[in-house]
């Protein structure tokens, strides 16, 4: 009997080995293969990071202190590289590096200089940290020479603004990065070095700098968030769509904390709040006068005395303007049917167009223009949006296919051409659906600028890689907005958002004029039209101090002139960081405007210099300036200890991954079982026979012997 068991055990062992051997082979393969971008790994032992954000809201601005604690629980000296998102309009102006109870303050430096100083300090074995802007909303922290077992706390301070739409204030604090891909490349696990961070034409860092390793480990990236809203008035509601929150109130100061002390950083945090009915802000002018900090003076003094004044203007048109019934509109749809739109893009475009046409009311008029090498209009002149005309348009749009060149200029001319009888009380909107693959942008912008008239241009970017700069700039020149649709299933939502806005324009041809004070430098230079629920926002700067003045905001509402006066009262502010909110906001707006011009200007060096100067003067991180903090003391002896560079993985955004399907039915396993049992049966049978023979008895006799 022992014999049989041994055989069976051997068989089982053999099978197990067979399987194990294959696993080992697979493991080997695993380690050596170059991986694609789809799969990713947990990166090797890196310092842990935990973050904490304290957001203070006052008026339309927020001030955030973001603390990143890097804890090195490895046995090596580490350099941590951590990519993190910030709000789109974050002006980072503060860096503190805390080691034990010592705090080293960061200073703003030109990006290249800061990077060199950081590298030098790193090599020398000094603790140093560097904050760089990789994209408008993506930053990196480098911290060098974290000793084994040590923690370094980095605090970053930034200002951003609150969003206001339809009576609701909101702030969005991004917590993770949607992974970006370069096809065919594995999300790298090696640390990027200065050499690998290639920059593209617009000066932004290459893909590597913005593709941190990702993790789905639940406990990997945790954060705490606290918000303080200094409302000054009772608030009606405070909600978060993304997290459960606990709100406490003391003297109209609201404190919001997360119900869970720490949360995984796999989704952004949003908070919305509403003032009580009838207490929505109507208009506000904040102003401040600032004397340049001595440190900034050597760069460029704002004027002889170094004094500047700033104002931030916000105006919300009275609610009764919003209640105006839907105004009849003329909508011209333009669809790009050039070769680059082939496949999915043209399908998206057709769907977007049909959606837009469907939403028109009978009192609206419309026309459709398609263009490739030439531009063709559906109707000779715009027609009423009757059921019949709409159905003609659907059929026409359905039959459009993509091929040929991209002559946007022709289509633009046709779209902007309208007869003189056009009723100026009507609103004329051009919805331009394209992937924007054009080369003669300048010419098109000039044409739009000269011939826009009463029309407004809304660009809808289609396809996986539309020319966003073209979309944005064309819409800006055309005093409209741009919408980006990257997936077929997004078409409905995005178009709904766009069209519900287009149906309710409130104020057009908005101008801001100043009485009693000089004409300031102002951003945006052209105020876009106002749609339901939106405020007018502008930021201005004067050289020197300003006295009392009056601001007039005027525009056209339903064909009639509308205007409102606001008082400008100068206010002296202190020189602390928080006291310079308006200056920083202005600097941000100006840099944004310069960055836009960088795309079209042929003097990029000059603009780069201008941006650098502004960023240095106002002390904010930009694409050309970084914050750097270096400790004087040398902590690591480079001749004794090496330094390991480790990237901190970011949490994979929730809902962004797919499960692996199961891959086997177990047919082989069942056959193997069948075989195993057959073998056992045969062995058992043979053994029985053998025993019978060796005892010289028949099985029955044998049996009798045993039992008798």
């Amino acid at each position, binding site marked *: 009997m022992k014999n049989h068991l041994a055989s069976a055990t051997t068989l089982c062992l053999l099978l197990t080995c*067979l399987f194990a051997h294959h696993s080992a082979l697979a493991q080997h393969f695993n380690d050596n293969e170059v991986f694609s971008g789809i*799969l990713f790994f947990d990166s090797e032992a890196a310092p842990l990071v935990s973050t904490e954000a304290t957001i203070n809201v006052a008026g339309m601005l927020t001030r955030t202190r973001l603390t990143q604690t890097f804890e090195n629980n490895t046995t090596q000296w580490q350099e941590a590289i951590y990519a993190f998102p910030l709000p789109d309009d974050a002006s980072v102006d503060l860096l503190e590096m805390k080691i034990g109870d010592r705090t080293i303050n960061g200073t703003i430096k030109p990006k290249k200089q800061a990077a060199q100083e950081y590298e030098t300090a790193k090599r020398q074995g000094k603790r140093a940290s560097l904050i760089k802007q990789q994209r408008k909303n993506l930053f990196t922290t480098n911290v060098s020479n974290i000793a084994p077992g040590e923690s370094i706390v980095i605090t970053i301070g930034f200002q951003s603004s609150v969003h206001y739409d339809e009576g609701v204030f909101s702030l969005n604090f991004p917590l993770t990065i949607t992974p970006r*891909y370069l096809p065919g490349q594995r999300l790298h696990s090696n640390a990027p070095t200065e050499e690998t961070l290639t920059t593209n034409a617009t000066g932004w860092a290459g893909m590597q700098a913005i593709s941190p390793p990702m993790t789905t480990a639940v406990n990997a990236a945790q954060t705490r968030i606290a918000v303080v809203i200094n409302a000054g008035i009772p608030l009606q509601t405070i909600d978060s769509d993304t997290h459960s929150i606990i709100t406490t109130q003391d003297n109209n100061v609201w404190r919001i904390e997360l119900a869970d002390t720490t949360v995984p950083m796999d989704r952004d945090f949003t908070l919305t709040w509403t003032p009580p009915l009838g207490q929505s802000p109507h208009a506000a002018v904040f102003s401040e006068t600032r004397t340049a900090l001595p440190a900034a003076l050597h760069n460029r003094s704002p004027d002889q005395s170094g004094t500047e004044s700033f104002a931030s203007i916000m105006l919300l048109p009275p609610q009764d303007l919003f209640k105006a019934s839907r105004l009849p509109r003329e909508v011209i749809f333009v669809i790009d049917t050039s070769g680059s739109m082939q496949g999915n893009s043209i399908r998206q475009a057709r769907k977007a167009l049909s959606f837009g046409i469907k939403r028109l009311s009978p009192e609206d008029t419309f026309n459709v223009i398609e263009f490739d090498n030439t531009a063709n209009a559906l109707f000779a002149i715009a027609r009423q949006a009757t059921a019949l005309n709409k159905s003609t348009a659907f059929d026409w749009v359905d039959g459009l296919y993509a091929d040929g060149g991209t002559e946007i200029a022709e289509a633009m001319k046709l779209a902007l051409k309208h007869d003189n009888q056009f009723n100026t009380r009507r609103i004329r909107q051009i919805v331009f659906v394209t992937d924007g693959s054009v080369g003669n942008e300048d010419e098109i912008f000039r044409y739009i600028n000269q011939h826009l008239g009463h029309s407004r241009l809304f660009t809808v970017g289609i396809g996986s890689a539309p020319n966003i700069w073209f979309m944005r700039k064309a819409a800006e020149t055309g005093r409209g907005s741009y919408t980006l649709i990257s997936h077929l299933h997004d078409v409905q939502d995005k178009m709904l958002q766009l069209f519900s806005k287009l149906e309710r324009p409130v104020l057009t041809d908005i101008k801001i004029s100043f009485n009693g004070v000089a004409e300031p430098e102002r951003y945006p230079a052209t105020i876009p039209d106002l749609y339901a629920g939106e405020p007018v926002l502008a930021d201005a700067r004067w050289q020197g101090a300003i006295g009392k003045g009056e601001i007039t905001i005027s525009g056209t509402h339903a064909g009639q002139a509308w205007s409102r006066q606001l008082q400008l009262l100068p206010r002296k502010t202190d020189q602390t960081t928080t006291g310079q909110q308006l200056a920083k906001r202005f600097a941000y707006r100006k840099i944004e405007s310069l960055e836009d011009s960088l795309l079209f200007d042929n003097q990029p060096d000059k603009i780069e210099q201008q941006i650098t100067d502004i960023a240095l003067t106002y002390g904010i991180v930009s694409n050309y300036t970084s914050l750097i903090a270096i400790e004087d003391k040398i902590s690591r002896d480079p001749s004794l200890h090496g330094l390991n560079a480790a990237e901190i993985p970011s949490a994979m955004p929730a809902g962004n991954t*797919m499960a692996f*399907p*199961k891959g086997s039915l177990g047919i082989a396993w069942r056959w193997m079982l*069948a075989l195993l049992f057959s073998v056992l*049966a045969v062995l058992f049978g043979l053994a*029985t026979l053998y025993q019978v023979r060796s005892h010289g008895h028949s099985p029955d006799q*044998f049996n009798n012997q045993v039992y008798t």
Partner: protein
Amino acid sequence: MSKSRLWILGGLIMMAIAAAADASYLMAKATLAQHLIARAWDKSLNNYGEPYKPWPWADTVVVARLSVAAADLDTWVLDGSSGTSLAFGPGMVSGSAAPGETGLTVIGAHRDTHFNNLEAIAVNDIIRLQDTGKRWHEYRVSHIDIADSRTDKIVADHTESRLLLITCYPFNAILPDGPLRYVVEAQRISS
């Protein structure tokens, strides 16, 4: 021979037969269902892409046809990758982009039935996928990887048209439900 010995022997033989029958049943199910699935697909194509169930009580529909000359593979893809779908044919993982659409399309099947020959596919081979609108989309194999389903994840967010064919690895392992997956990645080249 004693009765107890006979019982043991009989039991062993029965077990062997049961296991063999089970294996044969699974194989037969996987093979025979393909005929019904093919019929449902033809019906779909002739009815402007209206989805059809391969048999009245099926909890899935046919969403694509998959053809890989290099692996001698010509089969149909069911919606979803639950065990009940995969028993009958390759399944499209939920959240996948439709064939030819921008995004990631993930198709899984068992290594011991429909994807038993996936190993024959090499880089640069062509994978063809037909959508319900009768259009064929061609994908070129760009990578072949082994992934570990315990630590690796498939990231759904993609800006281009890609296809993943996934099955268990190693191909001739005896035990089912191993953690490793064989992944064939392909990029769309045309429709």
